[in-house]
């Protein structure tokens, strides 16, 4: 049974006299015990979606339910069974210990002292917070603050946990620890983890299913493996010098699904990633580059990843889309 369900969910905002559609007719079912990924570039509508599901924002039209309760009208029935964590939030009150903060937040849910002690012991152990739990928050490093934030989101034993970029700006080891924890919580405790992120490696590592969102619309929703198999075309990564002024002539080559690029200004080298439907397209691209005076320094073929899936679906990479959304 779907624990999170949305039908034709739409949310628009008024901004500078015009209407901005942040979510556009979203239909989604998320199952119990699933780590569900919502993958999209910044500005795609992920945070708006999480705010509606977590009862902080009303939809403009359509509906969403958590465990069968309407997020717009039955928030008092939803709030005891959900929790949320964001990579951008302050972990808690600085001059109080991590344990003290966790106790305070547990009281918002009426957690008994006995249950609190048991849960803190378990969460500290799972998130490797043991030696830090009695330190004041201001004494903790970014990684340990984030572990505390994650522990807070599970302190009330929620059925559904919404996570918005939970590993943003974290070191590799901490991010891995948190991902392992999320997988464990979903599998062993039958908890639903709803993960909004633009980190594709994270999505591939932990999610049972992924919905790719762009401009407020869900483009596809499948397991990472199926997405790569069904939508992922191989990519050719090419190092070019000088950097091409425009990518249009590459994008216009037949069988090219999308192009993204990054520039190493120090070396004056552009790394261009081209997603192609047919491998022959690469010969035409090489010819086009030579004609425009751009030298191909090196190139290699890359197996499809979720980045290629996104490029295939949208024709643009995450970075380009984020620049478009910001402008």
């Amino acid at each position, binding site marked *: 049974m779907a624990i999170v369900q949305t039908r034709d969910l739409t949310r628009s*905002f008024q901004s500078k006299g015009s209407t901005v559609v942040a979510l556009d007719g979203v239909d989604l079912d998320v199952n119990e015990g699933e780590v569900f990924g919502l993958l999209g570039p910044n500005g795609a509508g992920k945070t708006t979606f999480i*705010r509606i599901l*977590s*009862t*902080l*924002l*009303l939809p403009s039209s359509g509906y969403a339910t958590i465990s069968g309760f309407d997020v717009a009208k039955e928030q*008092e029935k939803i*709030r*005891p069974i*959900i*929790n*949320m964590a*964001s990579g*951008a*939030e*302050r972990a*808690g*009150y*600085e*001059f*109080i210990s991590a344990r*003290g903060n966790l*106790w*305070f*937040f547990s*009281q*918002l*849910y*009426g957690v008994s002292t006995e249950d609190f002690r048991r849960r803190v012991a378990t969460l500290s152990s799972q998130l490797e917070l043991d030696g830090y739990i009695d330190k*004041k928050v201001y004494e903790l490093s970014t990684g340990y603050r984030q572990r505390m934030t994650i522990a*807070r989101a599970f302190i*009330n034993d929620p059925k559904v946990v919404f996570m918005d970029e939970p590993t943003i700006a974290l070191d590799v080891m901490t991010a891995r620890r948190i991902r392992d924890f999320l997988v464990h919580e979903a599998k062993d405790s039958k908890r639903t983890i709803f993960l909004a992120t633009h980190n594709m490696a994270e999505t591939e590592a932990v999610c049972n299913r992924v919905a790719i969102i762009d401009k407020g619309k869900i483009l596809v929703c499948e397991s990472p493996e199926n997405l790569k198999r069904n939508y992922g075309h191989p990519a050719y990564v090419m190092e070019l010098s000088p950097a091409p002024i425009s990518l249009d002539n590459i994008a216009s080559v037949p069988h090219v699904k999308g192009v993204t690029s990054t520039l190493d200004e120090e070396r004056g080298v552009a790394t261009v990633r081209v997603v192609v439907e047919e491998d022959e397209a690469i010969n035409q691209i090489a010819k086009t580059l030579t004609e425009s005076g751009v030298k191909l320094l090196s190139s290699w073929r890359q197996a499809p990843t979720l980045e290629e899936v996104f490029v295939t679906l949208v024709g643009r990479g995450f970075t380009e889309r984020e620049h478009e959304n910001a402008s």
Partner: protein
Amino acid sequence: MYSRAWVRVRSTYGEPVWVAVNLAVPLLSSLAMALLYRSTGLSRFTGFAILGGVMLAFWGNVLWSMASQFNWDKEVGIFEIYLISPAPISAILVGMSLGGILATVPSAALVTLIGWRFFSLSVNPSWVAVFLTFILTLASLYAMGMLLSSLYLVYGREAESLNNAIGDPINLLSGLYFPSIGTGSPFPFAVQIIASLIPLTIGMDALRKSVFYGGDVEAVWLDLLILAVMAGVLLFLGDRAMKALEERGRREGTLVVRLR
């Protein structure tokens, strides 16, 4: 509610600089006013200045540690954790109030102690009346703090500006250091009427009567009644405003404005 009070008290005493500021500001302002009274030959009014310093500590706490605290919570993302929890916001605010009162008691006690020791205050208290007036003044003050806090659900910096704007006028009109209503008030009648709408004004007037002039419950019953009504009305308005503004915030998307 109790857990939020605990957070308030622990946070206040978790940082030495805050402890110093909390203790020093009301103490220095009341000492300055008391010395001014004494140097101008009005020593009989120094007690008003000390009493004003005690109440300033609580009033400052309402403005800066309660209403503004909500804005800080909103900016750093803690406010949304409150909102998505089943705990009523009004319970969190009452907890903040209780914690604020407990955290302010040392400051108020210090002002009282130093005032008593250095200015040989002449008091004639009616303790029951003092106690009732003090409790009802705090109740109405913190109820006003709850109402102000509700503005942060929809307005952010605008509400903080309102906080800044009303601080000093209320200090002046409420007569923290001198009688602003009734006999001895320097204000015209119309201004006194406006000043009477502020709970702190009624509270200060009744406290002066009961602390310095032996006014018993019978002498201050009207002030007590007004304070009780104000506390009730402000609590009711605060609770209604909180619910209405939360719904409006959910509709307009203004509940969460985080500074990254």
